[in-house]
Every structure is written in structure tokens, then in C-alpha cells.
């Protein structure tokens, strides 16, 4: 039984080692897509098991009043990883999602080439993400963030024979690098002032450089988290990437950078109330721009991408209210929304991927006839979209219930103003989710070939699993809330 520090790096080691091993298998043994998909999912499953064990230990440590298990690198450098509650929840979601996506790719990528790099990149992406949310020092944070970003750039431009994918990847690269560079500059400035790289800084009176450094760090992470107006890379990247990649990125990647944003902001001694205020203000353009632009999209994945920006806005607002008014449960509710979003948005992207694979549907109008062709996908797509719209009894509604309930506990005019904007936005969002749902069941224009397609098991299983989670989180949100509360996500 591995314990303590070894277990903390176990998930990361499994993911990184797995990436290397799968690349070797693809290179030397076989490049068959199915084999690589199975191997990748095994790696994800192992990493998930390691994370769950780690979670159990972290919970036991919390219960015993001890610090969470941590791993420190070479002596004196201060670099390290720690299994904190919030990070563990995000990492678990990411690895579980990786498992779903890798199984899905067993069929989805069958017609592509270069699978031997795709699967390792997918593992590296998740490795970067897991490392980032568990990092205890700014430099590891930067490194893992960069690892995640670079793999994401490549994965977005993976179908390099299409100009649009390359263009989107390039745009993502430029803006993403600007973000990470800003982060690096911030890290350097903080180090210059304090001589420490720890995220948990104990600066009593930060000097001007430390302030600028912190601002730069938050700005850089804000770009990665698609805070409006630094969101422009997101719709292109998610709209052009393969659906499997969009699912990963939209489901958990920007949420993980948002978590890092919170960690850095709070860790550096930023007063929670000020940080919350900042989040509340920044969330408004996220909601408005996300929903407003989603409304005018004809391209399904771009619409889903803008809806991610909007959901990010809801999460930011809720967490912001929690920090500003000292309501820890609101932060937990924000994490619940992240978890719910991580089930329903990837489900939507992956369903869209099936439609694209079978009959080349890209625009929303081309989704007509999905019910006639692939009934299972139509039903699951409906679950995803209706859940995103926040209709009971699905996960999105449970999330809406919790966040609204917590937001209403803060009795302040600014909260009410933000709430009005949030509600107006959820109503606005119906205007783009529901027509798509209707289109799924509309008969396609006459003359279209309507061949019934059996959805391959490779795709049906992960889609079904996500669908069950989206339904389960709505019907029975208790255990999920308990899990998040037990992990103490509200405390970071």
C-alpha cells in the first residue's frame, strides 16, 4: 500500500508514464486505434483508482485534523504537490472525463491518422491539468499549465488537413502563450520581491512589484479561463477541434485554470472579499457575451463553446458571491455547477461528434433527422441540452437550484442586480438550446438519405455513462454535494 507523498505523485506518474508507454506501443507494436484507445483508458482507469485512494487518504487526514498528503521535490526548492480538496475534485473529474473520452475515441478517431500521438497527448493534457491543480508552488503551476496548454494547442489543430483547425490552433497558441507568458512574468516578479515561489505567500505588506506580479498572474490565468474579453480564442478552438478534444477542454480545462486562479488569488493573501467582488464584476460580461453570442451561432460547436463561457460566468458569479459575503456553501455550489457542467457539456460535444462522424453535421440545421438516424444520440443530446438549460430533473437544474439558493443568501443590492442578469441570461439561453433540441427531432429536408446508423459501443458506452451522470446528479444530487463538502472545496 502506497501512502503519503508517493501516492500524491502516483496519478501524475501514471499519466505521464502511460503517455510515454502508449507512444512506444504506437510506434513499435501496433498503431491500431482500438488497441491504443483501450490502453489509454486503462491508464486513465489506473490514474482514477490512484486518485480515489488519494482522496480517501486526504479525507482521513482532514478528519484527523492533519494536513493533506503532500509531496515535496528537491530540498529547499519549495516545489511540490498537495492533495487539496478542490484540486482533488477537479482532478478526479478530469481523469474520469479522460476515461470517457478515450473510450469514445476508439471509434471516433477510427478514420483519422496519427492516433499514436493523439492518445499520448490526451494523457499529457490531463497530466498537466492534474499537476496544475495540485501544485503548491508557482513554478510547478506554470509548468503544468504550460504542459496542458501546449498539448491543447496541438490537439486543437490535430486535423491539420483542415485550414480552419490549424487557424484555430494557431490563434489559441498565440493567445494562450500570451496568457502563460504573463503568468511567467508575474511569477518572476513575485519571486523577485519575496524570494519565494510558494503559492501560499505570507506577504504582510506586498510591495508594488509583488502587486503587479500578482495582477499579471491573475490576468494570465484569466486568459486561460476565458474571462471575457480574453475569451476570443475559445470559440475558435472548441469549434474547430475534434469533438473529443472540445469535450475535454470545455468540460474541465478552463474550469481547472479557474481553480488555479482562485488558488493563486486566495493563496497570495488577496482578501477574499475583494477577490469575490472582482469575480462578481468579471462574471457579468462572461454571462452576457457568452449567451448573447451563443444565440447567433449557426455552428453547433461554436454555440456550445459560447455556452461554456456563459456557464463559466455563472460559476464565477456564485463563487464570487461566496467569497465576497463569506458563504462557503456558495463556493461548494459553484463547484457543483462545475461538476454538473463537466458531465453535460462533454456529453453535448460528444453527441455532436457522433452526428458529425455519421453524416457530417456541423451546422445546427444539419442536426435535423438525428432522431430518425441515431435515436440514442438524439435522446442523450437532448439530455445534455435540456440539462444545460437548467430544466428539472437534470444536473443543470440541481446546479441552478444550489447556486440560486446560495446567491439569495447574500442580501445585497449588487447580488440582486447580478442575479437579475444571471436569470435573464438563463432565460436567454433557452432560446438557443431549445431550438437545437427541436431540430434533433425534425425530419430532414426531403431527398436526404436517412440510413439508420447503429451507434457503436465505443461511443454509446461513454455517452450513456455521461448521460446517466447528468441524470443522476439531477435526481440524486445529495451524494455529490456531500462529496464536495467533505473534500472541503470551499476552503480551496
Amino acid at each position, binding site marked *: 500500500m502506497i501512502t503519503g507523498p508517493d501516492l500524491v505523485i502516483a496519478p501524475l506518474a501514471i499519466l505521464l508514464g502511460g503517455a510515454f508507454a502508449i507512444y512506444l506501443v504506437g510506434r513499435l507494436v501496433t498503431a491500431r486505434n482500438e488497441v491504443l484507445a483501450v490502453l489509454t483508458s486503462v491508464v486513465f482507469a489506473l490514474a482514477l483508482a490512484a486518485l480515489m485512494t488519494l482522496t480517501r487518504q486526504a479525507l482521513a487526514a482532514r478528519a484527523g485534523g492533519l494536513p493533506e498528503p503532500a509531496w515535496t521535490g528537491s530540498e529547499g526548492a519549495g516545489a511540490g504537490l498537495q492533495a487539496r480538496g478542490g484540486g482533488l475534485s477537479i482532478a478526479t473529474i478530469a481523469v474520469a472525463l479522460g476515461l470517457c473520452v478515450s473510450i469514445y475515441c476508439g471509434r471516433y478517431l477510427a478514420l483519422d491518422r496519427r492516433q499514436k500521438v493523439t492518445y499520448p497527448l490526451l494523457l499529457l493534457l490531463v497530466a498537466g491539468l492534474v499537476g496544475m491543480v495540485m501544485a503548491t508552488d508557482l513554478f510547478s503551476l506554470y509548468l503544468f499549465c504550460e504542459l496542458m496548454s501546449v498539448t491543447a494547442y496541438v490537439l486543437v489543430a490535430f486535423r491539420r488537413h483542415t485550414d480552419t483547425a490549424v487557424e484555430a490552433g494557431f490563434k489559441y497558441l498565440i493567445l494562450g502563450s500570451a496568457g502563460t507568458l504573463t503568468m511567467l512574468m508575474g511569477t518572476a516578479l513575485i519571486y523577485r520581491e519575496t524570494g519565494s515561489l510558494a503559492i501560499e505567500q505570507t506577504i504582510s505588506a506586498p510591495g508594488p512589484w509583488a502587486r503587479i506580479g500578482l495582477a499579471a498572474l491573475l490576468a494570465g490565468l484569466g486568459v486561460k479561463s476565458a474571462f471575457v474579453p480574453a475569451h476570443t480564442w475559445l470559440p475558435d478552438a472548441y469549434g474547430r477541434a475534434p469533438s473529443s478534444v472540445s469535450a475535454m477542454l470545455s468540460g474541465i480545462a478552463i474550469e481547472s485554470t479557474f481553480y488555479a486562479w482562485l488558488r493563486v488569488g486566495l493563496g497570495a493573501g488577496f482578501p477574499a472579499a475583494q477577490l469575490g467582488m472582482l469575480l462578481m464584476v468579471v462574471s457579468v460580461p462572461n454571462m452576457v457575451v457568452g449567451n448573447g453570442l451563443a444565440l447567433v451561432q449557426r455552428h453547433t460547436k461554436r454555440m456550445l463553446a459560447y455556452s461554456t463561457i456563459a456557464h463559466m460566468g455563472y460559476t464565477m458569479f456564485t463563487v464570487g458571491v461566496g467569497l465576497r459575503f463569506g458563504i462557503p456553501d456558495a463556493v461548494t455550489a459553484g463547484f457543483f455547477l462545475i461538476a454538473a457542467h463537466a458531465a453535460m457539456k462533454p456529453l453535448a460535444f460528444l453527441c455532436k461528434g457522433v452526428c458529425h462522424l455519421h453524416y457530417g453535421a456541423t451546422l445546427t440545421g444539419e442536426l435535423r433527422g438525428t432522431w430518425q438516424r441515431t435515436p440514442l444520440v438524439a435522446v442523450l443530446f437532448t439530455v445534455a441540452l*435540456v440539462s444545460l438549460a437548467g*430544466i428539472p430533473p437534470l444536473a443543470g437544474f440541481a446546479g441552478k437550484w444550489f447556486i440560486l439558493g446560495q446567491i*439569495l443568501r447574500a442580501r445585497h443590492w449588487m447580488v440582486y442586480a447580478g442575479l437579475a442578469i444571471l436569470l435573464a441570461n438563463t432565460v436567454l439561453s433557452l432560446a438557443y438550446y431549445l431550438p437545437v433540441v*427541436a431540430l434533433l427531432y425534425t425530419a430532414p429536408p426531403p431527398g436526404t438519405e436517412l440510413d439508420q446508423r447503429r451507434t457503436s459501443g465505443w461511443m454509446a458506452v461513454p455517452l450513456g455513462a455521461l448521460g446517466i451522470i447528468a441524470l443522476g446528479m439531477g435526481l440524486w444530487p445529495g451524494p455529490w454535494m456531500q462529496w464536495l463538502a467533505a473534500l472541503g472545496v470551499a476552503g480551496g
Partner: protein
Amino acid sequence: MTTVAMLAILVVPAAMAAVLVVFRVRLRRAAGWCAGAASLLTVVASFVLLGDLNLGHEPVLVASWVPSESIVLGLHLDWISFPFLLTETIVTLVAIVYAWGYHHTDERSPLFYALLLVFGIGMSGTTLADDMVLFYTFWELMLVASAVLILVWGDAPPGGPSRRAVTLKYFIITHLGSLMVLIGLLTIYNAVGTDTFSALRAGHGLPFELIPMVTVFFLIGFSVKMAVFPLHIWLPDAHTVAPMPVTIMLAAAMLSMGTYGILRFPFSLFTREQLGGFAVPLMIVGIVSEIYGALMALAEEDTKRVVAYSSVSQMGYILFGLGTLTQAGIAGATLQVIYHAIVKALLFMVVGLVVHGTGRRRLGELGGLGKLMPVTAVCGAIGTLAIAGTPPLCLFDSEWMIFTGGFASGHTVLAAVAVLGSLLTVAYALWFYGRIFFGQVPEGLHAHRGPWALLTPTVLLATLAVVEGIFPAPVFVWVSKQVALLLGGMP
């Protein structure tokens, strides 16, 4: 037995809907019968529950849902919900029977009937729910089911907005109302710390300054569902485009859910003194809605739209009755809900028979049908006279009580305006009836007799409208038991 009956109201139609969906190929022809049987069982179960309520048993079911947030799921029936539950189950049954004759059987029929059942579950679940989560879930279920029914089986008149546009408008506007309700619910939830209504009945502990805010959210939210002016804008289109059985359910049953919400929340949580400030605004909005609906009904040419606008007008009466905050006014408003359900279903059925028999739906193209469709004409006469408030038909009784409440509330001028405004109701009702059933038969107009599945429920409802008008006693007893629970106990 009691809890079994209560569960049966939700589970039997749900199970039948699932069966219809799964065996949709085999049950194509029998779908209507199956749905009707399930719906009949819910009506029987409602009467079983009535027996229990009369004995003083209030059926309760409770289950914990999210322990960490003390969210509990519960079902419960009391005198506030019973009149609505009964109205809703009966209207669903009647609508399904009507659909046997109206709905053209095809391979999607099982889905149609399954959705009618789900729509019914949404409404009975709303009345039975004893906690906020279930209440809101069923509240939205009713919206989702009806929106799908309108979207897929709707029948948009040429020249008007498309089914899709109408459905989206219906969904978005009523969902906006739902969100208002949700805010109200969550505010109370935060104050009480749990979501069960049983805890609310024991005392809500809501800070005094929040009561007006919560009331405003509830009143606006539920008024959207009630479709009173100016929140009615979804109604005429949705009611016109929906297929006739769905229109019957929308107009006769779903609108009453708004009244139920107002009675269930602001009226049973707060006292008369706390709501005092809302009396005059409610009465004024009621009067405006009453007059506006009637004027629009006078101006409309499409038969279905006339009846749809008459709902806006009728909901105005109900809101006025509630606004009086008097025993007579509130009892009258609840009676009006029940009687309006009977009469509105009847009128839509008559319109359905006319459209079905002649293939025309514009008033200008109809006329003289009294000779061609005598049974429909008699039923139509009862319906229009009832809506005009003619004694001894049922709506006369409820309007009498509403206006009594109006004068008893001391706002004599408002009450007088409301009474005078009812003249417009008479005007549109008679004008509507005269243009369809009197006068010359236009050239080329042929009418065939409606099938028995359309005529039977129509005749039954017409009979009920007369019987209820003459013998209002049993329903009146239920309603007065309800009123005793409202506004912190009635004097």
C-alpha cells in the same frame, strides 16, 4: 390506502406513458384507450382521496433527498390542493377522451397520448408536491410536456407565426415566470432552512422585510402562468396553435395552476395584514385583464383565439377575487377556477366540433350552424351563456361570490367597475355564438355531425355546467374548507 391512492395519481400515468413509448408500434391503435384508462384511474384515486380528506386524514409521503442541505421530497394533499387536483385529473381525462375523436391516429399517436399523460402528471404533481424541489420539478414538467405537444402536434393557422416560434415564445415567457417562482421559493428556503411545506405550515420565520419581495416574485411568477394582462402574451398563440385536446388542458387545467400557486404560497403563508398592500393592485390588474381580454375576444376573427382571449378575461375575474382578500372573494375565485375549467373545456370542445365538422375556423366564414349541428349548438349555447355569467349556470355562482367579495372588501368603486366590465364578457360571448350558430349558412359550408368521442364529453360537460350551477353545494363545501386555511385563518 391513502398514500397508495396518492402515489397512483402519479405512478399509474407515468407507467402507462412509459408503456406507450416502449410498445409504441404495437399499441398504435389502442394508445388512446390505454391513456384514457390510466387517466380514469387517477380520477378514481382523486375521489378515494376525497373520502379520506372528509374523514380528516391528510395523506403524506416524505423522503430525504439531499440531507446535507436538508432538502426533503414530500407529497401531501390538503384542502387547498384538492379542488385543483380534482379539476386537473378530470380535465385530463376529458381531454384524452376528446382526443380519441379529434386526434388522427398515426404511428406517433402513442407518443401523443403518453405526453398528454405526462402533462397531466406535471399538473397533479404540482398540486400534490409538499416540498419546493418536487413542486418546481412538476411545475416545469408541465411546461416541457405541453411545449413538446405544441411543437410537434401543433396546428399553426396560415399567415400566423410558425409552431416553432410559438413554442419558443410560450416556453421562454412561462419559464421566466417559473424563475420568479423559483426565486421566491429559494428565499423562503434560505429563511426556513428546509424545503418542505410542512415546515412552512408550522411557521415560516421569514424576516418581515422580505415578505413583500417574496410576494411580488410569487405574484408575478404565478400571474405569468395565469396569463393575466400584461403577462398573457404567450397565451393566445399557444392556445391557438396547440392541438385541441392540448388546448383544453392548457386552458382548463394549466391556467388554474397559477391560482393554485398564489393560494399555496403568498395566501397560505402570509396573513391578511401582510398582504394588505397587494389588494388594490391585484384588483386593478384583475379588472384590466377582465376588460382587455373581453375586448380582444370581441376583436378576434379566429374562433380559437376568441376563446383563448376569453381565458385572459376570466383569469382577470379570478385575480380580482383573490385581490379582495375576503372569504367570499377567494372562495369565489377558487370556484371560478373549477367552473371556468368546465366551461372553457366545453367551449373549446364546441369550437373543435365546429372546426372538425366544417373545416373552417374563422368567424366570418361560419354561420347558421344551429340548424346543421343542433347538439353542438345547444352545448355551445350553454357554454356561452355560462361564460356570460347567466344564472342558473355555474359561472354565475362564482362570479356572484367574487363580486360579493369585491363589495365586502370596501373597494366599492373597483367592485362596481368589475361588475360593469362583465358586460363586455356578455358582449363577446353572444357575438361569438351568434356568428357561428345563427344567421345564414354561408355558401359552400357543409357540416357533418361530430363523432361520439367528441360529442360525449361535450354533452357531459354541458350537463355538468348546468348541474353545478343549480347544485353548487358539494364543491362549495370543499372550497370553504380550503378558504379556512388561507390568510392566517379566515374570520
